[in-house]
């Protein structure tokens, strides 16, 4: 099964890099948001209750990474839906390929792209003056959280694709990405969010993931937020992968 998973992951990655128009939005939109948020709201760091940071870019970098990873999930879903629409999925189902590899191959590709997304934003931040306070260990923590979270979001996208079987339907969840992001602490500290976003943010796994990504970048390494972020990301990944496998079984029964 490992060989099939790796082969399918390589195919998914090749397709992604062959169609940069699908990859570009993953970093273009979050980069634009990052620029506008930092340029427009830089002075909010002086608000009472805002944590002590070197600059708003340090704070916002985690938001951009989280947003990019979520868009990566949408992109993985669209790619899976295109495979279904184009008939590749049915040909795969008719072959002796291990069923689990169909999902895991896509998720392995999603995790590689997630790692690249994290590296892109860390380099971008470094260019514009943000440094990772946690040093090399901090970078590795951000990378680990990002990869696990990116895999989870990819699994969510694949699950939706397997159920919807339509790329345009998966594309339709794009606004939802922003909904879940806005009701988290990705963009602003929890104590400065307006109700009811502050209440929802406390239960939103994205808050823990964003806070975990932010901790080594803006404040330095601390065990608790990092573990909470990893637990939240792993929770999303395990739950979404399980749901994807269930969706796959349902799809195969219908095929």
């Amino acid at each position, binding site marked *: 099964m490992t060989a099939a998973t790796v082969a399918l992951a390589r195919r998914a990655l090749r397709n992604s890099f062959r169609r940069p128009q699908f990859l570009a939005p993953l970093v273009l939109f979050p980069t634009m948001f990052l620029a506008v948020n930092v340029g427009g709201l830089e002075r909010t760091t002086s*608000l009472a209750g805002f944590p002590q940071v070197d600059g708003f870019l340090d704070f916002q970098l985690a938001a951009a990474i989280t947003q990019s990873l979520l868009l990566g999930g949408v992109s993985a879903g669209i790619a899976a839906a295109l495979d279904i629409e184009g008939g590749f999925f049915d040909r795969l189902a008719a072959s002796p390929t291990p069923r689990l590899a169909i999902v895991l191959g896509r998720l392995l590709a999603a995790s590689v792209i997630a790692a690249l997304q994290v590296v892109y934003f860390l380099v971008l931040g470094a260019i514009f003056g943000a440094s990772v306070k946690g040093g090399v260990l901090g970078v590795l923590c951000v990378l680990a959280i990002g990869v696990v979270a990116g895999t989870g979001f990819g699994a969510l996208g694949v699950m939706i694709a397997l159920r919807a079987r339509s790329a345009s339907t998966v594309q339709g969840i794009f*606004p939802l990405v*922003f*909904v879940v992001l806005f009701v988290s602490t990705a963009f602003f500290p929890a104590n400065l969010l*307006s109700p009811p976003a502050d209440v929802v943010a406390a239960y939103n796994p994205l808050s823990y993931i964003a806070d975990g990504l932010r901790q080594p970048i803006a404040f330095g390494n601390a065990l608790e937020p990092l573990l909470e972020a990893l637990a939240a990301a792993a929770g999303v990944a395990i739950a979404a992968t399980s749901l994807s496998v269930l969706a796959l079984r349902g799809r195969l029964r219908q095929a």
Partner: protein
Amino acid sequence: MKRGRPSLRQDVRTIGALMRRGLNEILRVPGGAIPGVLAPTIFMLGLSAAFGEAARLPGFDADDFRTFIVPVGMLQGAGFTGAATGVNLARDIERGWFDRLLLAPAGRPVLLAGVVGSACLRCLLPASFLLIVAFALGVSWPGVGALVLAGLLIMSLAAAAACYATVLALRFRTQQAAPLMQVGAFASILFTTAYVPRELLSDWLRAIADVNPVTHVLEGVRQGFVGDVSWASTWPALLAVAGLVTVFGTLAVRGMRRQGV
């Protein structure tokens, strides 16, 4: 049988038919239209929930962040609608429908007017939905005059965005150019005084906002929501939007005239 250039009445009927076709897509493909209608409202709600405390900054000239951000949502709706028009045109090109359209005895500017006209009307849908939600949440009524002016400005901006997206659709002839269309519309609206008044922007963003004509359009739409409507804020908005429509309209007409030659 008399043949030649269609009459003005025939041109108007052609434009009307193309506009109806554009509007029909909302009903025929609601799954494609709903995200575009909802997105500006989601942004308005989300941004005000996340960044609402920014209204406490000294120099912020609105009562609350939500009121300040509503006009941005209206412009976003116009930008998304314009970009979607380009994507739809690219799809028509891919499927061959556009080539059949070119065989019709209608001038290329007439065909463009139909496509762009549908964008002007469609952009009112996300704006109306956004305003209904905003007023329900307590955003103050800006007055009929301010709303009419805002409607005129966002329709014109949608026309400019549709022309821009049409240029790209005619150039690339594929829906894969969609991100280019969306990013252009999105960036032009965000790199303005979208989040905070000009005085609170960081230097580099203020420099971009100052040369970005959409900043004037945004300030024109924002009248009534923040402060009173004044000619001093209205004429730059009208001039900016007229310039955008002229520039992108000219490019789009040129692109249309090159088709099928």
